């Protein structure tokens, strides 16, 4: 008995060679479910702004010439999930009913995980998402997924390697956010210093993303006598406050900060970072706030488009604006290579990008989607703060 026979099924044409939902001869629609309200809305807004800025400019110039020969404009539909997994699933279901071609660029591990299964079973791409969770880059488990940003482990490892390489004795204190973000950083860092006898971890603390103060952790870590402080923190005000607090209590280690919270103008300057012997961070994107890049054509174009098409007039305070701009470039590349207007074809094209130098990417980094187990960007460079902006750091010290 075929009970389901009588329902008007809208998504029936999923698999075949006919075009997939969300793509016509003249347009393609992408969906982004991301936190646009609540505590993570700051970076969340950036994810939408960057992609919109990129494709806004592309559309204005006529659109993308797809691999099937047709030129299409790219529409972005955004949905607020407020960092609530249940809402991101709902948004995904809404996307499906809104005939969205693919979900992309959404921020957050739990929110992306919440609809991963559904995306797989409905064969809807969920790609270039902003989470460093390795699951999304595992081809077998996640056939319709791909992460964009380096897995958190990579960022932590990059710094650890540099530190180990220095040869000098270092005592490290670690403060990390109590979630997969912080844990990933710490795991990568610890892995990379495993063999190094010159590095010892002398103190390790965590904080909650919702905390208003980490003074106690800093006081505790300061008493450990560490000379290097690995601070895997993603919360802007807490990072500023910890930069201020540590120097107040007379603790002046060398700092490591993640790519999220290393903005020279928004964080380091108000935090009085100049007082420390060194601040290191990792990145793959040019920081528009950095004086070194003030006249960089990529950066100028980016800021301009962000304002014009991304509805984001301010100087971006979160790197997600740049990252999602690169997501736009990566998607464009995949569109150019896809031979049929189908999701299958899109995934094939997307998984075949190598050596793409997306705008805003730093020297030494590129988009490479061909490696199983790695997201689209897996290379980062360690940088050192020079009092105004960042310079690539080859050696520690």
């Amino acid at each position, binding site marked *: 008995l075929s009970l389901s026979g009588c329902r008007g099924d809208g998504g029936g044409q999923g698999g075949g060679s006919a075009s997939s939902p969300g793509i016509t001869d003249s347009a393609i629609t992408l969906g982004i479910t991301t936190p646009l*309200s609540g505590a993570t809305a700051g970076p969340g807004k950036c994810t939408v702004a960057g992609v919109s800025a990129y494709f806004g400019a592309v559309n204005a110039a006529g659109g993308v010439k797809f691999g099937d020969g047709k030129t299409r404009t790219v529409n972005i539909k955004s949905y607020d999930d407020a960092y609530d997994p249940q809402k991101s699933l709902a948004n995904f279901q809404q996307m499906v009913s809104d005939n969205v071609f693919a979900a992309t660029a959404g921020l957050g591990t739990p929110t992306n995980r919440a609809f991963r299964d559904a995306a797989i079973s409905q064969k809807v791409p969920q790609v270039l998402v902003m989470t460093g969770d390795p699951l999304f880059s595992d081809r077998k488990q996640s056939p319709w997924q791909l992460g964009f940003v380096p897995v958190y482990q990579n960022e932590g490892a990059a710094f650890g390697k540099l530190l180990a390489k220095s040869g000098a004795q270092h005592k490290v204190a670690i403060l990390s956010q109590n979630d997969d973000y912080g844990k990933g950083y710490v795991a990568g860092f610890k892995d990379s210093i495993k063999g190094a006898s010159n590095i010892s971890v002398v103190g390790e603390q965590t904080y909650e993303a919702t905390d208003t103060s980490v003074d*106690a952790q800093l006081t505790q870590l300061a008493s450990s006598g560490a000379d290097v402080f690995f601070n895997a923190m993603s919360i802007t005000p807490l990072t500023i406050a910890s930069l201020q607090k540590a120097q107040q209590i007379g603790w002046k280690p060398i700092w490591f900060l993640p790519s999220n919270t290393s903005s020279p103008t928004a964080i380091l300057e108000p935090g009085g970072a100049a007082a420390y012997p060194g601040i290191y961070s990792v990145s793959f994107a040019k920081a528009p706030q950095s004086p070194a890049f003030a006249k960089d054509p990529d950066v100028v174009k980016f800021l301009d488009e962000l304002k014009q098409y991304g509805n984001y007039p*301010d100087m971006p305070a979160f790197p997600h604006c740049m990252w999602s701009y690169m997501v736009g470039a990566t998607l464009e590349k995949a569109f150019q290579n896809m031979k049929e207007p189908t999701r299958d074809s899109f995934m094939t094209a997307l998984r075949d990008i190598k050596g793409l130098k997306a705008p805003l990417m730093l020297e030494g980094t590129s988009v490479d989607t061909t490696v199983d187990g790695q997201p689209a960007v897996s290379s980062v460079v360690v940088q050192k703060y020079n009092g105004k902006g960042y310079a690539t750091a080859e050696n520690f010290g």
Partner: protein
Amino acid sequence: MGTFIQLVVDGLATGSIYAALALAIVLVNQATGLINFAQGGMAVLSAYIAYVFVQLGLPLLLAIIISVVLSFLFGALVERFLLRRFERGDPDTAVVVTIGLLTLVTGISAVLWGYNNLAFPSLFPLTSVEILGAVVSVRSLATAVTIVVIMVVLQLLFLRTKLGLALRAVADNPASAAFSGLPVGRLLMVGWGLAATLGAIAGVLVAPQLTLTPGMLDTALVYALAAVILGGLSSPIGCVVAASAIGVLENLVAVYIPLIGHDLKIAVPFALIFVILIIRPQGLFGRKVVVRV
């Protein structure tokens, strides 16, 4: 020992953030009998308003004063045109209205100023002084002193002035108070206005440290509520003492009881509430509500 004292001093500084908001909550409660969940959101809005005036080039102090005055008006208008409709009804509904207000006000701040962290200038310098071997910033110290001053003023307002008496009378039994000629509506507006004023002061005091975002006080609100309940709803002194105690204990527990650690230290205020309220249901300094059937 040095660490211990530093932890205590840090805890007091954090506690003063909670206390700032807690005082405003106590004021609304004493004046209208409600718990205002929107108190934090309104304080943030006030801080944004001050920020705008600073951006326009006004001196910080003047900007704060303007914001405080505007906040009074805003609080009074909110009472008159929103809460008025719910004051006689089910208190749960009124609480949910304040939740709605919190959402709305937070949303408005977000629309007008975005979610980026804005640096808010401080009235007090960030330089630090040493007390008993612990380091504390002048800013934290000044914040704490300001809060103690506000606390004393509030205590005097409630217990020594005619206005305070009238506010309490209206909160206690508006119908009966009206029979004695108390302009109930106007007094409720004044109560909300004053609380918003206090919230504004709290907002500009803590904004330099937390940096301005629409959700700046969301976490602090939970702690402030805990402090209010722990200290006793009717007592400004109680809520300041409780807020400080929470700040300090949290630090000590997180550091010295590794099993709890920094991730579960947030359980401390609630455990404290539980233990103390079993013994003293009215809170540390609160007066017992007398109920006879």
